[in-house]
């Protein structure tokens, strides 16, 4: 249906053009009402004071950039809260994403290796992908009960003698962050593995054979052939994971019962937004936070994309390096 079909299709479809508009109309109508208008409203709200103080409604009064200034003004302890929460979000994301991508890359290479010929791949893939579909709030509640003071983890540690007294996992910054990172890792590494596997299988297999025949060992093949060719998909995964990370909410919200304990060290940006929005209907402040989240999403996505695409271009442009290395 390629060349000779195209002109006739185009000629015919001219008279049917209106159906194109009719068919895409519902999508755009719904998008306009339920996404675009709310988006504009969000930005609009960020320039107003508008919240509930108990039962009294304050505002809306136009205040220009006052909400933004307030967000970046240090509190009595000299801490700029939004920066602290942005930092928390990034730390939580990194702690989960580093093992997520390392393990996913490793597994993707294992699963696609003909020489290793791993059996039971279907089973392993089914198991590692499963946590991705589990309700994040229920998963968090489950982790909370498992790791609570009287939960099975503490019981197990004491019955086996690994710990001599009850460990409270929810009083230390390290353990709470560790648990959130572990949950995020569990929920996402299977997904990343499957996507990266598809990426590796999409690479021309003769390249691997050629490199092997030229004497490249597995490590060399990985760094000089697999990785450069996998880069576009790797970048795609990384960006989507990052954008997902900035939106981190369900897990810390339920695990820490919306407190981000201890001392708000696991309080994320979206929890901050949600806090303003749900308790005092503070549309002004939550609007300003939304705009900032939107900007961070855009900037971070751009940086990662630029940085990594510059990296992967280099070996692709100079394929000679692969051959040179392999010939030795």
């Amino acid at each position: 249906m390629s060349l000779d079909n195209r002109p006739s299709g185009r000629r015919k479809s001219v008279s049917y053009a209106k159906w194109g508009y009719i068919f895409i109309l519902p999508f755009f109508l719904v998008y306009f009402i339920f996404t675009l208008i709310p988006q504009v409203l969000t930005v609009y709200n960020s320039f107003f004071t508008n919240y509930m103080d108990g039962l009294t409604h304050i505002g809306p009064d136009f205040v220009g950039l006052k909400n933004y200034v307030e967000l970046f003004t240090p509190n009595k302890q000299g801490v700029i809260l939004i920066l602290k929460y942005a930092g928390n979000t990034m730390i939580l994301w990194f702690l989960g994403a580093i093992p997520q991508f390392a393990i996913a890359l490793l597994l993707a290479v294992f699963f696609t290796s003909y020489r290793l010929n791993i059996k039971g791949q279907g089973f392993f893939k089914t198991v590692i992908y499963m946590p991705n579909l589990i309700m994040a709030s229920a998963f968090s509640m489950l982790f909370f009960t498992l790791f609570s003071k009287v939960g099975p983890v503490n019981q197990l540690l004491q019955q086996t003698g690994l710990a001599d007294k009850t460990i409270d996992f929810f009083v230390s910054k390290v353990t709470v962050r560790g648990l959130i990172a572990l949950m995020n890792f569990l929920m996402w590494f299977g997904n990343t593995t499957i996507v990266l596997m598809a990426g590796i299988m999409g690479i021309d297999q003769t390249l691997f054979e050629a490199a092997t025949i030229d004497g490249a060992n597995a490590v060399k093949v990985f760094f000089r052939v697999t990785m450069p060719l996998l880069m576009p998909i790797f970048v795609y995964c990384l960006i989507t994971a990052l954008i997902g990370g900035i939106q981190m909410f369900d897990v810390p919200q339920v695990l820490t019962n919306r407190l981000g304990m201890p001392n708000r060290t696991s309080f994320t940006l979206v929890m901050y937004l949600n806090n303003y929005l749900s308790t005092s209907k503070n549309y002004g402040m939550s609007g300003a936070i939304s705009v900032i989240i939107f900007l961070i999403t855009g900037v971070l996505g751009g940086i990662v994309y630029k940085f990594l695409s510059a990296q992967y271009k280099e070996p692709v442009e100079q394929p000679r390096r692969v051959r040179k290395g392999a010939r030795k």
Partner: protein
Amino acid sequence: MNENTKSRLMMILLRVVVYAILIFLTVLCLFSFYMMIINATRSNAQLQAGFRLLPQEHFWDNLKNAWTDASINIPRGMLNSLFIALTSAALTTYFSALTAYGVHVYSFRGKNLVFTFIMAIMMIPAQVSAVGFVQMMNKLHMTNNYIPLIVPSIAAPVVFFYMKQYMESVLPLEIVEAARCDGSSEFRTFNTIILPIMKPAIAVQAIFSFVSSWNNYFIPALLLDKAEMKTVPIMIAQLRSADYSKFDMGKVYMFILLAILPVMLVYIILSKSIIKGVTSGSVKG
């Protein structure tokens, strides 16, 4: 010969390491769910008594206690969640296929712009518009209403993208032309000829849409506060903020089990096609 046996030994060693890693990860993935199922079969007293790897006899007691709990009406929540998830899945797949069909089959001015636009909005996080969304729904008195949770699923860029990709690979335009020659109207062609062809894509996206709707917590929690309207994730969060020490822990595990169960069942039955669906839509080539 010596080299050969050496490399063969290395291969066996490597294989052992790989399987060890895989088994470790399997245990890590399944441990929490295994404990959930085991603990849902134990009474509160048994749970306090200590750790145990094998089930006990209180599964039905816990189920009855959780099902008839006075403060958390889990059957109602499951029914609410099921209704929202099913209608969202139906709407999102039908209208995404319709939109993709509109862009795929017809030529019209601005068609490329439409495609680029949908691609561009795909990356915008939903939470960014939450403030305006909640404000608007408050003004329109649409809180404690399922319309704002269901209707927006009509405009789903990711599902659209998947459907478009699928059409490019399976839908020859000759079918459409043949249907026209036979006098079929455009809508009829779509409903009776195109949709059946799209069945595999619709099934996969319906599952993903069902799951994400069933699990959705952020927006519903901001819009639903009437007890009889609440969905499962809101109830689970409520469980977390309730006074914990008074709770029957066997019941708590049962609540979590019930929240996860529908998706787990769907996954166990359809895991193969779900895993296939993870890659085919999200990554080009």
